[in-house]
């Protein structure tokens, strides 16, 4: 047998990388199941099953190519979508989300590697715009104890509503029943994936250790959010909340660690990754503080996804040789 050099190959495969992403998501998923009970589990099951099945069907019958669902990328999309939905969302909402994510955002562009926008986020945003009621009916963390869903607002929505009613930050949180420690561990209302900061950070550490992702994007997003929030807070602590709150709520961590780092829709080299991250961080904070949505990272990531080809074209990696 003959082939051009090299004759050795590393152990990385698409499947292995995707499997690692799933493993990294598991702690956060486990926490959400612990707090939200069957609702979270059911959403995830529907989402993953429909995503994988849809990709298989499209590849087999529409594109007539050998199905490649075994590379697990559809499963990752499904899980990420589930982590972005409120636990206990109706099954038809989830189904709509996965059809949008896989059918429209991924396969219509040619499948894995070709989609310009993060499929899970497209799914989520379409749902958010189409079904605002179902998408903002957040279950409160009650665990498996009760079956009837008690719903409430997320901390960010609470804050936005309060500010719009002319209250100061302090007044709003006098009535709120959560602490930063709870934000860290996840006993708050929110979508499945955004509740436990600590579990998400554990996943981040795992991805870094396995060299699945590089730290540039998450770190630059978080740093931008913190800096942006910090400046506002320093200017007017009555109108704006402190940066730590911004970091721990509203899926910033989920977005920064798992959504923005999606290979296909992020830049290819450190310089570009940092530009991308700063863009996402700044847009998120603009939407949060000045926009009408309480939460902005999904939109921010999708907007920056559109800028990725441009970033790749102009931000080049460090070359070995300086001059031509």
């Amino acid at each position: 047998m003959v082939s051009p050099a090299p004759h050795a190959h590393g152990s990385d495969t698409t499947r292995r990388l995707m499997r690692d992403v799933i493993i990294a998501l598991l702690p956060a998923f486990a926490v959400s199941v612990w707090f939200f009970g069957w609702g979270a589990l059911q959403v995830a099951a529907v989402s993953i099953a429909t995503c994988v099945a849809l990709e298989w069907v499209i590849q087999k019958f529409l594109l007539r190519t050998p199905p490649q669902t075994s590379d697990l990328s559809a499963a990752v999309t499904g899980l990420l979508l589930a982590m972005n939905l409120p636990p206990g969302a109706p099954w038809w909402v989830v189904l709509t989300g996965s059809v949008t994510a896989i059918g429209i955002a991924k396969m219509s562009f040619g499948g894995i590697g070709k989609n310009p926008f993060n499929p899970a986020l497209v799914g989520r945003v379409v749902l958010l715009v189409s079904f605002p009621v179902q998408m903002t009916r957040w279950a409160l963390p009650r665990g498996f104890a009760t079956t009837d869903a008690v719903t409430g607002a997320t901390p960010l929505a609470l804050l936005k509503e309060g500010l719009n009613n002319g209250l100061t930050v302090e007044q709003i949180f006098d009535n709120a029943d959560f602490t930063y420690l709870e934000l860290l561990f996840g006993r708050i209302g929110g979508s499945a994936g955004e509740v436990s900061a600590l579990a998400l950070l554990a996943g981040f550490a795992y991805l870094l250790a396995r060299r699945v992702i590089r730290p540039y994007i998450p770190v630059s997003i978080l740093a931008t959010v913190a800096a942006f929030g910090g400046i506002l807070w320093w200017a007017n602590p009555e109108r704006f909340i402190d940066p730590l709150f911004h970091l721990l709520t509203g899926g910033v961590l989920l977005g920064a660690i798992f959504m923005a780092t999606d290979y296909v829709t992020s830049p290819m080299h450190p310089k570009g990754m940092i530009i991308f991250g700063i863009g996402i961080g700044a847009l998120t904070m603009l939407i949060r503080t000045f926009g009408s949505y309480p939460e902005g990272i999904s939109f921010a990531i999708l907007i920056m996804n559109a800028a990725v080809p441009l970033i790749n074209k102009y931000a080049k990696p460090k070359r070995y040789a300086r001059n031509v």
Partner: protein
Amino acid sequence: MSNIYHLLSERLPLLRRGLGGGACSFSIGGIHPEDNKLAANSPLQALPPEGTASIFLGQHIGAPAEAIVSKGERVKTGQLIAKASGWVSADIHSSVSGTVVAVEPVADLSGIRQPAITIQVEGDEWLETIDRSPEIIREIPSDSAVIIKKIAAAGIVGLGGAAFPTHVKLSPPPGKKAGILIINAAECEPFLTSDHRVMLEFGEQALIGALLLKQALHASKAFIGIESNKPDAIRELQKIIRERGYELQVVRLKKRYPQGGEKQLIDAVTHRRVPSMGLPADVGVAVQNVGTALAVYEAVQKHKPLIENSITITGKNLPQQINALVRLGTPLSRLAALAGGIPAGTGKIVCGGPMMGKAIVNMDAPTTKVTSALLFIPHGEAQRRKASNCIRCAKCVQACPMGLEPYLLIKLTQRSRYDELRANRMSDCIECGCCLYSCPAHIPLLDYIRMGKGELKSSKLKVENYPTDGHRL
């Protein structure tokens, strides 16, 4: 600013070794393939000549040599049989004694017939001028012209793999001076151990060769770069340097592929970077392989031309791991027989290391001056995996030691966008294989990049690249 940094880092080697566990390394990209130095503990054994030897006339970069013997003539070991046919060309000597049976093409590794001289071996009668005593001659001629002349007369080429005639490399273009000599002993390719054994067994000779090269270049400094996975070789050379007071310095390099790439080695040792399409001489550096240094010693001090080299015969399924001193022109099948024959389940036979070696189709092909290894890869590992879609993970960009974007280069190649290929420095590629190694989608990146480089050259966009020594990575 960067000048000050470079000045400092040259003056204070310890400063730049602060990071990276005290070992130097290049600064961009690189991968960590499995080491697999299976033959590291097998001493070099000499393989006596036997049967026939076919010696190619074009074993080097540049014009092929012209045969000066004809069919039926008797030759001695070490006798000149083909003369260099230009400045960038090299003499070729008989590696055996016997009768010339043919001066016609012989199939090479890839089955393509190349002009060669075939000699029937009869005994082993050496040319009288060659000093075959084991005595080490330490005096170094002071005239660099004499050294270069002797090197040219011995037909020495860069043994790292590129086979560029050494006497040409030692005569840098006017106006450029190589103040620093780096001896490349990184041997960063997995499986390869022949340089390692040379350092352990002919350490002092190689060091004297390094001194000769340094003298020939009038270099002020000489470093020997060795990867940290060869601690015994580092210790051995350091001991000799200390005892003899040689003006040489051993640099410990981090184990990382392609540490032995010429440009990477220069970066690791001196923190200088060769400009795009430039020569090492542009940054005042010359790089020579450690095997070349040994050949230079033998040529200058012992009058022995380049007629044999050290070859590693290795593979995971091979019963014996062997390092051998082999005469030029020995058929590869003899080497395989030495190691117990081609093992069952071999999928691919490679001449050279697994990263940059060439897959062989013709086991009767003779060895050349730059043959460094014969590697047997089991079937399962040899097969390329099926390519899938690019997931834009940027692992290739991360791995590229030249800071290129392989994924982009192949896309542009497939669309024949030569201007953009040039803007994206396609011709900087050193074909080390890091991109293909690290690709999770198994896309044959390097195959296409190589093709693109060829097309770029033929598309009249002038791309002249200096053939690099130091490819025994």
